[in-house]
């Protein structure tokens, strides 16, 4: 059964012609590169990203420390590499939480309909009318800062976005004759939801994930920058920039390199997301 889903998704991907576009294939390459760096971060770092070195405070970029060092003498390159791991981890986990909750609520809302749908839609619209970052700030205020707090906060911020789009998709797909046919053949609700509805909205969901992953990473760095994100000993990109902010005059490289890493990663995901969206679901374009 599970194999069936995977093979269908893969065959859907094989049909995509966008890989011929150089911008998109380069982006895909970079996304894969970033993922590899994140996974193998402990083997990529040259120096210990947490090791203070009082002899090497605020050293400008050189051969040994290619991105310089910060106010504690820590190697920026190693911290940026480690930051890749932390930033992606938080981004992916918050998307995972937000997407699962959103898909779940969207499926219920769209499939069940009636009063449940009414209440859920109202809740989703209320949450959506607030800027994600403000929702996140308030949630972090409640659950407390730190990686977990940020992941939960961003997850809650992302949930209504997925819920609304999934609900819309479910409403259209529910009308199809194949759903009716499945029901006539005696398929249960769970079976219809998983094998007939969920599988048919997998395209839009993949697109949404690629679009919102860079946003989640940016939001995490913004929260960390505001000082209500991850704890100081977790070097995410946003946290490194926040730490280097006071030294922008004497040591601009502390802020420069993590920022560049953030931008390039975000661009790659955005280009990839745009390409996938055009291919898989052009209707999602309205944003």
């Amino acid at each position, binding site marked *: 059964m599970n194999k069936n889903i995977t093979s269908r998704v893969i065959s859907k991907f094989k049909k995509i012609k966008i890989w011929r576009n150089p911008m998109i294939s380069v982006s895909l390459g970079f996304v894969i590169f970033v993922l590899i760096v994140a996974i193998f971060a402990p083997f990529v770092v040259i120096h210990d990203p947490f090791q203070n070195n009082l002899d090497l405070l605020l050293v400008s970029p050189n051969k040994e420390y290619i991105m310089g060092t910060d106010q504690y003498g820590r190697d920026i390159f190693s911290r940026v590499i480690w930051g890749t791991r932390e930033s992606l981890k938080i981004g992916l986990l918050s998307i995972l939480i937000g997407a699962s909750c959103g898909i779940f609520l969207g499926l219920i809302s769209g499939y069940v309909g009636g009063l449940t749908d009414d209440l859920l839609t109202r809740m989703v619209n*209320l949450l959506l*009318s*607030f*800027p*994600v*970052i*403000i929702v996140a*700030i*308030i949630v*972090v*205020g*409640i659950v*407390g800062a730190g990686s977990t707090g940020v992941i939960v906060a961003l997850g809650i911020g992302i949930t209504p976005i997925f819920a609304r789009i999934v609900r819309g998709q479910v409403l259209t797909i529910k009308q199809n004759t194949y759903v009716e046919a499945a029901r006539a053949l005696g398929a249960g609700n769970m079976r219809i939801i998983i094998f007939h509805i969920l599988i048919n909205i997998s395209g839009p969901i993949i697109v949404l994930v690629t679009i919102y992953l*860079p946003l989640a990473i*940016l939001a995490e*760095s*913004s929260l960390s*920058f*505001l*000082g*209500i994100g991850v704890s100081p000993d977790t070097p995410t990109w*946003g946290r490194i*920039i926040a730490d280097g*902010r006071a030294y*922008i*005059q004497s040591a*601009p490289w502390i*802020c420069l390199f993590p*920022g560049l890493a*953030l*931008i390039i990663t*975000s*661009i790659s995901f*955005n*280009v990839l997301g*745009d390409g996938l969206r055009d291919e898989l679901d052009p209707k999602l*374009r*309205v*944003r």
Partner: protein
Amino acid sequence: MLTLLVIITAAFIITRVTPGDPAEILLGDYATPELVKMVRKEMELDKPIWAQYFTYMRKIIRVDLGTSFRTDREVTITLLEQYPYTLHLCLGSIMISILFGIPLGTLAAIKRKSWFDKVILPTSVLAISTPMFWLALLVLFFFSIYFQWFPLLGAGNPNNWVSLAYHLVLPAFVLGLREAAIITRMTRATVIDVLDQDYIRTARAKGLTERAVIWKYAVRNSLNPIASIVGLDILSLLGGSVIAEVVFSRPGVGRLLVDSISARDYPMVQGAILLIAVAVIIINFLTDISYRLLDPRIELE
């Protein structure tokens, strides 16, 4: 109205479920238990939760948001002092994003596939992908520290509008850039769609100049979808203003919210959330009205 009631209640619940005792935080680590008890009594935190909610609701009807735990000033007055700064910032940014976004997007759509169009798309992706606080630091570094063209901190003298505007330039630009990029892309896509419509062909067929076709027919008909995007953008500007206020050390509601949350200043957090909620409702309402103004065919419900 119902929405407002839900938000008012939510703001209350949010502040009560937040861990951390405001009295202890206010008094610091060396407070005696008796003192904490006394302060809690003064803050009316010793009463049962429903009594606190009742007092809170009764006060809100009289637009009394209580006094801040931290500064001992009335929340309403503090908010009234702070909100113009955020308003200026948001208005400035939205003006920048519209003034750049709509003409650039239209031009890119008209001159589709020209070099201009090909430059616009990657530039907008760059603008959307750049984290605002990082761009803010970069801009501060170059224009305030290196060239010293613009002030580094603050919002200027509140009684002098030139000083206010001067202090607004950098934050408004940084905050508006991302939205400008989004509006550019949206305008481009909409105008391209509209240019394919039958009435454009008719307008051209009856011999109107290209300029008239574009400005009277194409852009006019594109304004509605653009208005909805602008409405959404103002909302995200509201979120971005928090970060801009912190980076540029400007006063404002967003910064007040962040500071009050870390200080567990319940009345101030409630007040700031309420103010933002009211702003959100007003923005949504204005967006709805603008649909009607831009397209008389739409009936308001």
